[in-house]
């Protein structure tokens, strides 16, 4: 058995070593780098007007994209799982697109649609509605990139829970609406919550698509990730690391929430 024991140690060493060098060590480094010159510089950068505005804008993105994609996600998952239809495969395929498409291409697509020479750009500009380089465009980008998560989480849960309880409820006279609120939603709630957490993480961190549609104007159309890039490019490393640390803390809370939800389900 000694060879099996040594191969076990070898694999453990390889796997954990890889994770440490690639994920853990860089993450620890962020904490170290941020506070290299004390807490002052990073704190000043985040609490500067531009920093605070970036934080606010990031939270606005989350506040709009997450509810929108949650409602869409639940409805879409119900239709896909409970209503057989030839077109379901196509809907299912379209939903996966944001997973596979480059954020830059997503940004470009919105740019071409709502830009000055775009399909909708001129008409919307005539009625005074600005999509590009302003919040609506950034919201569209955020919704696009985070679209699949709730659907993908809820579909397997819906398939797993089956329909017995829902049938019982409707036999007892509950209408579809009552059945949904009393039976279906409670049964899928952790899956929904998990999907929402993934959606939030994705929206918080979106960079590529938003960078194209927003123009990254400081204090106007800059989310936290864009703020990080601007600070770094301007050699203001304290600001870049400070904002990164804030985002990393948000990411770690997301990770914690993901694990708590998994445990809840188990």
């Amino acid at each position: 058995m000694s060879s099996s024991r040594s191969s076990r140690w070898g694999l453990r060493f390889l796997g954990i070593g890889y994770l440490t060098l690639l994920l853990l060590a860089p993450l620890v480094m962020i904490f170290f780098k941020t506070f290299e010159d004390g807490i002052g510089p990073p704190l000043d950068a985040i609490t500067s007007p531009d920093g605070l505005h970036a934080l606010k804008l990031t939270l606005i993105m989350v506040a709009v994209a997450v509810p929108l994609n949650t409602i869409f996600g639940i409805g879409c998952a119900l239709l896909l799982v409970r209503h057989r239809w030839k077109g379901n495969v196509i809907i299912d395929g379209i939903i996966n697109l944001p997973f596979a498409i480059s954020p830059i291409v997503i940004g470009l697509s919105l740019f071409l649609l709502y830009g000055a020479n775009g399909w909708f750009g001129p008409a919307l500009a005539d009625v005074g509605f600005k999509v590009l380089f302003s919040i609506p465009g950034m919201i569209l980008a955020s919704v696009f990139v985070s679209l699949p998560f709730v659907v993908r989480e809820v579909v397997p849960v819906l398939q797993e829970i089956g329909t017995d309880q829902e049938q019982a409820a409707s036999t007892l006279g509950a209408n579809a609406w009552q059945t949904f609120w009393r039976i279906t939603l409670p049964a899928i709630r952790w899956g929904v919550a998990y999907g929402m957490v993934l959606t939030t993480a994705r929206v918080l961190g979106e960079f590529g698509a938003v960078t194209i549609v927003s123009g990254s104007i400081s204090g106007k159309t800059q989310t936290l990730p864009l703020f990080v890039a601007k600070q770094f490019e301007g050699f203001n490393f304290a600001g870049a690391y400070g904002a990164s640390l804030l985002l990393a803390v948000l990411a770690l809370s997301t990770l914690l929430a993901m694990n708590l939800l998994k445990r809840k389900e188990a």
Partner: protein
Amino acid sequence: MEAHAAHPAAAPRAGIRLPGVGAGLGRGTILLYLSVIVLLPLAAVASKAFDNGLDAFWTAVTAPQAVAALELTFIASLIVVVINAFFGTIIAWVLVRDEFPGKPIINAVIDLPFALPTIVAGLTLLALYGADSPFGLDVFTTRVGVVMALLFVTLPFVVRAVQPLLLEMDREMEAAAASLGARGFTIFRRIIFPNLLPGLAAGVALAFARALGEFGSLALIAIAFKTEVASVYIRSLVESGNESGAAAVSVVLLGASLLLLASITLVQRWGSRHDRGGNTGLTVMPMSGEDFTKDQETDDE
């Protein structure tokens, strides 16, 4: 509506269902949402790419800088996918079959690249492996740095695709093989690996798609000419006002994405005994939530 539910025969048989009109309305709403958010924008890219005819498209795509960018993107993604297929399988194995203190923490950390904003991922890599690296190397504006960033962001895909298959796997097959005299590596090659293949393939395809399009983690690292990947090139085209050129290169990336998504669907049909969505033909993405409905304790016994 006639839904008095007076006659029990009309009671829904498949759980909560919308009446016929409702389902149609729901589908209409969903298709409208998908069209506005996803399809129309992509159609704009496709149309822009061929705005000036097929020749202009071809010229844009075969421009030396475009070819170099696409080549680098595909080669780097390929390297990344091979490395992560190897280490991802090992990590999944260690997480399922090994026991050591701190395992739940390691298991949670796998999802970090899903949660961490990509720009932060790039910055952390520069902090450790950049100009003043304690290891004395500098990956800033190098191709090694590009590969490293892509390794970081695609790490979870293979792990999370392989892990549930390892959890589900019937250990008796391995025991039988061992009792017939097979040694460790033979068991892996002949018994375990074939069972992991559908998950591995799906994870690799998703990781490849992600690597092809990755931008955020490269935005700070890959700013030199020799590290210009497709996404960075497209951005520079947009910034210089060459929208149709940007759209043309985007169409190449889009085509690759569509192929990869289609291959994931095919792989899942092929390995459909592992696929909870199999009977309805719906895809199951190997995200961190894949083993979500499973009992987490089973791997700890």
